[in-house]
């Protein structure tokens, strides 16, 4: 299942993802999906500093990524980690049922104004909660987990019942 991790984490490429997840999952490719970064060489350069030589890093815009998801899923040669910065980007990638049946990991969204604390590493606004529910209705399996060894918290347990 060569998309070994599809993660929402506002820090994108950093130690916890590369070492904590990439190591145990034996990932050899990391894709960052973000329109702004895809157009920004200096930003890509900075994120690449945190990537060890054995892992290939690439940066794609949302539309390009959406078209490639099926390819990564079916790729027998590479084990891919896909990273998005926030729920809004996740929702855009998931348009046209692109992520139907996939597993998505909520890994790190920090405290900010308007956000409610759900977990020590996860703060969401009401809109983001609704967006996630919408994705779940489209058969995207969403759960929160900060490290592979932790127990995943499924979406139904995270969000208060409507």
């Amino acid at each position, binding site marked *: 299942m060569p998309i070994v991790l599809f993660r929402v984490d506002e*820090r994108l*490429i950093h*130690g916890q993802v590369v070492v904590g997840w990439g190591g145990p999952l034996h990932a050899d490719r990391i894709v960052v999906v973000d329109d702004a*970064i895809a157009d920004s060489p*200096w*930003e890509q*350069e*900075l994120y690449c*500093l945190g990537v060890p030589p054995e892992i290939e890093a690439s940066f794609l815009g949302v539309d390009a990524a959406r078209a490639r998801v099926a390819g990564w899923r079916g790729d027998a040669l590479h084990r891919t980690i896909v990273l998005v910065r926030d729920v809004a980007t996740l929702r855009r990638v998931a348009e046209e049922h692109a992520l139907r049946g996939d597993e998505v990991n909520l890994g790190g969204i920090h*405290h900010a104004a308007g956000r409610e604390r759900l977990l020590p590493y996860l703060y969401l606004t009401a809109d983001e909660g609704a967006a996630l529910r919408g994705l779940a209705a489209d058969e995207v399996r969403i759960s929160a987990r900060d490290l592979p060894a932790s127990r995943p918290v499924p979406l139904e347990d995270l969000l208060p019942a409507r």
Partner: protein
Amino acid sequence: MSGVSPRVRRALLLRSFAVQGSWNYRTLIGTGFAFVLLPALRAAHAGDEAGLRRALARHAELFNSHPYLATVAAGAVARLEAEGAAPELVGRFKSALRGSLGSLGDRLVWLTWRPACALLGVCLLLAGAPWWAAAGVFLLAYNALHLWLRAWALDVGLRDGLQVGRALRESPLERLGERAAGAGALLAGFGAVLAFGGAGARGTDQLLGPAALAAGILLGFRTRRVAFALLAATLAAGALYLRTR
């Protein structure tokens, strides 16, 4: 290095020594970063008190970095603010920098340079050097890199602004780390042997030396806990023996 005066640059460097002064679990190094940046923000927002307060609030937000490399961020952000860059751009820059400054610094300084220099001091002492030589050499060697790193990082930040990624990638830091790790491994072997060798073990007791070395290598970071237990057991055994005599 347009827009950032020498006086402000000196202030950034000096304040960087206190960058972790209010490190906390909510904003990590954020509050300290704002403290370091304050002189630059004052200059950039001169005459605009409200603008200064808004900028300061922005920069006191969550941020992280290795303390010695925080000047990369400080220098680059100082330049960006002086040039009037949009807050959103500066925010993205800091987000992109966070992970790399942390891991670069951790790998080079805490995991390599510091233990290597400490081992140098320890080995000197074990080899018979006077107390002031051991501590002195450690401090001199360690801080030679430490102080250079802070100043170099500030220069890189001020000079390259958004483009610091390339300078960091092409820096001598990686190679330096490799050399230091090699020296550290050498010193570790040397010191470990001297540590036990000087204990005057006789006969079969001498086998404890290689055993201790092997234990240390195999246990790795658990060595400390095992050492504590062993020492405590030794002391307790002594007390018990005296009690029962």
